[in-house]
């Protein structure tokens, strides 16, 4: 049974997606999608348990043996990502449409749920597959679904930003495919485990270095690594909040996973960081992202854009962890992927609650929301604390490991820069807090607390930022195990 878990995790949402469209009724589609997401989540939990107890899971698709057949392969790293993606989907789907100002065009709801399930299937596919070309296929499945999801928004800028995301995303996908093609040319295999072995013989080759460069640029675009992040603020800020929450918490995280796979599994840390010294490029770019993203966030007038720019900065923290090329560094990166997904997903849902009431996510219009929507704004404050990295939230755990990794390498200035940039988060979070709590609400506006079906998923995610801030057994435990595997250090 355990061997079938990974393929079930992909097939459940993939096959349910068209069924969802056939349901046609808004409510039926919604409850069906929720059920599917929670079943997928349950499968992900079983997968993680199986991997932690019995080691890697391998599954030969259709019974064809690799390297010719496609192999699904799940170790600690994938299992963590699988859990992350499916749990976020399960929670985000609970988010109700709200009373006023629905963000999805009328009559499109079944399509919306279908696309969300498709995106989920694609993302899960990327995380479980052990085949490089298969990654590209699932990447396109999830990307095409997410372009459409962004375009579904009621915002009149939505189609345009979906289109520019499509251009950038396709560029990224193409770069990635070129890289995979070169690898195939050099080694004659697409199976990742096989590639790892065969690439070692041709490490000196310029074609292989070019392949690595193409792969990294391709992934970099989709991961929004500074300075390839331009598409992200537009895409996130014009999409419906639920979509922003889902994509921010899953899509970039899965791309981060692909980057980790390519750098550490396919090419190996020794080649990438010791021979090629990729850290000379990755570290400065990460630090620039941390400061550039946060500084840009400070000057935003729209809460969604603010959070999107903050995401750019947070991706910087994640890639910085990789650039240390140490077990602690990779642990920090992976932990932050998980933690950031929780807080950013939660915060975008907060925006969803606010937008449903105000019909806008302009910060200036949030005057007095602290009184009008106390539970929603409390969630924002807690999520903000997590972004800042206040102790007892997940952000602190990430920061802790990141700075430890810097100190291990003897890089005291980098450690200081990490902490300094997190102070910038105080500035952009507190700008919103001041407006929500210190300014009087607009008298005529009829704004009340968000309904339960919005508050519940929001607080599930926000609450988990506190829970995993104090109980790090699962997050740090799995991330550490994954990091050891990736760095080739046996536990």
């Amino acid at each position, binding site marked *: 049974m355990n061997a079938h878990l990974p393929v079930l995790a992909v097939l459940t949402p993939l096959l349910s997606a068209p069924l969802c469209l056939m349901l046609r009724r808004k409510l039926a589609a919604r409850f069906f999608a929720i059920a599917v997401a929670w079943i997928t989540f349950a499968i992900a939990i079983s997968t993680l348990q199986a991997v932690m107890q019995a080691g890697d899971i391998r599954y030969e698709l259709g019974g064809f043996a690799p390297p010719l057949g496609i192999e699904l392969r799940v170790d600690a790293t994938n299992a963590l990502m699988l859990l992350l993606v499916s749990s976020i989907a399960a929670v985000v789907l609970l988010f109700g449409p709200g009373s006023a100002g629905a963000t999805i065009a009328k009559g499109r709801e079944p399509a919306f749920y279908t696309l969300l399930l498709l995106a989920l299937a694609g993302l899960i596919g990327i995380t479980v597959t052990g085949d490089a070309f298969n990654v590209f296929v699932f990447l396109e499945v999830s990307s095409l679904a997410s372009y459409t999801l962004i375009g579904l928004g009621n915002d009149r800028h939505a189609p345009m930003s979906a289109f520019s995301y499509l251009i950038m995303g396709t560029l990224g996908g193409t770069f990635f495919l070129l890289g995979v093609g070169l690898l195939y040319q050099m080694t004659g295999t697409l199976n990742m485990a096989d590639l790892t072995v065969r690439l070692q013989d041709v490490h000196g080759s310029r074609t292989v270095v070019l392949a690595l460069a193409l792969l990294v640029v391709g992934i970099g675009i989709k991961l929004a690594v500074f300075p390839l992040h331009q598409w992200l603020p537009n895409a996130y800020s014009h999409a419906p909040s639920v979509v922003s929450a889902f994509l921010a918490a899953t899509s970039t995280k899965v791309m981060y996973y692909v980057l980790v796979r390519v750098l550490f599994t396919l090419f190996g840390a020794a080649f990438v960081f010791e021979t090629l010294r990729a850290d000379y490029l990755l570290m400065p770019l990460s630090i620039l992202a941390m400061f550039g993203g946060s500084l840009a966030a400070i000057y935003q007038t729209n809460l969604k854009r603010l959070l999107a720019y903050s995401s750019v900065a947070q991706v910087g923290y994640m890639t910085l962890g990789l650039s240390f090329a140490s077990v602690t560094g990779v642990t920090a990166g992976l932990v932050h992927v998980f933690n950031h997904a929780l807080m950013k997903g939660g915060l975008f849902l907060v925006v969803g609650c606010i937008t449903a009431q105000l019909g806008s996510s302009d910060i200036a219009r949030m005057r007095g929301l602290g009184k009008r929507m106390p539970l929603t704004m409390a969630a924002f404050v807690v999520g903000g604390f997590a972004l*800042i990295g206040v*102790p007892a939230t997940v952000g602190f*755990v990430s*920061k*802790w490991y990141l*700075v430890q990794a810097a*100190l291990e390498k003897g890089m005291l200035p980098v450690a200081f820069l990490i*902490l300094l940039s997190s102070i910038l988060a105080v500035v952009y979070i507190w700008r919103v807090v001041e407006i929500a709590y210190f300014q009087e609400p607009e008298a005529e506006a009829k704004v009340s607390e968000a309904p339960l079906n919005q508050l519940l998923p929001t607080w599930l995610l926000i609450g988990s930022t506190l829970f995993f801030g*104090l109980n790090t057994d699962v997050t740090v435990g799995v991330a550490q195990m994954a990091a050891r595997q990736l760095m080739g250090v046996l536990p």
Partner: protein
Amino acid sequence: MSDGQLIALSMLWPALAAVAVALLGRAPNLRDGASSVATLLTFGTVVQLVPRVNSGARPSLTLMEVMPGVSLHFEVEPLGMVYALVASGLWIITALYAVGYMRGHHEENQTRFFFFFALAISAALGIAYAGNLFTLFLFYEVLTFSTFPLVTHHGTDAAKRAGRVYLGILVSTSVGFLLLAVLWTYFASGTLDFRPGGILAGKLDGAEVPILLGLYAFGTGKAALMPFHRWLPAAMVAPTPVSALLHAVAVVKAGVFSVLKIVVYVFGLELLQEGQASLWLMYVAAGTILISSVVALTKDNLKARLAYSTISQLAYIVLGAALATGAGVIGGGMHIAMHAVGKITLFFCAGAIYVAAHKTEISTMNGIGRRMPFTMGAFLIGSLSIIGLPPLGGSWSKWYLALGAAEGHNEIFILVLMLSSLLSIGYLMPVVVRAFFYEPEPDAHHGEHAEHAEHGGHDEHGHHAEHGEGMHEAPFLCVAPICAAAVGCVALFFTSQYLHALLLPIAGGQ
């Protein structure tokens, strides 16, 4: 009750009080009653820990392991015991005073105020009991964020600006320096636990010790060491009970307590004595003592003057820590208690003057002692304690601090202490002299309300318009705590040997 239960309970009472306050928001009498009962319960619980600590036991409680090797762990040692006693003890009278002040002043949002007030005390106790640097840092930040709504209570633009300075300095120093120092310590020594004799001996290069000490000293922004002191005067926009809580008890003492505790239990006195790693900190502390005393002389606003006096007095404790001698740290520990009681008296008085006579500027307080004899009498006693004259508590802590300076052959700092005492006479006594010996100005209580427009909006001038001759004290709930605090200043002089005996183990050796 077991040790762990006492520790948990004493932090739980204020937290429960916060919940009760939030629930009873619509019934002010019940609400304030509940929080007053909680103050007594908290203090009663804390006191039960004293004999155990005195007998050499170290009550401890581990809640959970947050990260491998990093746990939420509490352990009560003498220094933390003193701080917990001070914080919970003074909370009793501050809570009463706050009721008198907030009602006498018809402040808005009193429920929110008492909620965060109780939360802050819970955080302060968490700091006091912290058994490792992680726990200390956690509650340090909780205290920062839970006091922010108190500083900005009035919600005016001035309050908002002050809140920015408050949060800006406290958060950036704690994240930028303190957290870095904590992580560095963990990296160097592999542990975050507070241990007698320190955990860093032999783990750092000689040149790294002063740098790490600097990160700690400036990182605990709550200790208000110059140049990171600006938040303290800025926070003066808060209602006076907050100023009393912040500037005498919870927040500032959390800062200097952390510095002392880190010096004693992380560095260890011996490590700092070798190679004079803390010499530079002595000079910074001495500079802060003198400069802020001089600045206090120039302030006409009573609360601002008291704020700068606090900065100077806090630097005494940092100086005691930096001296890194037995008598020095004991003197610092005692000064936590002595200054707390003395300064809370003075802040209570400032608040009482504001409630009863709507005066904030010292130059307008001529003859006020005749109308408010109890308040100004207490002000005199508090002042003398801050100056350090017997028979008041403040004299003992100064005595030990001077002894500590002599012990380490840094006699120059005895001179600094004496000079600072003279300066404090210079900025505190004029208030008393004006109050008792100057003739009240003829229009002192009519038609000058416009002067205090900055505090307008919340004043109920009409209520206080009729100031006749004779006594006109603040409400009873304000005056009674003031008298209690003043009595405390005297009592501490005669009971200081108990405090000294309690603190003796931190000097090491004995």
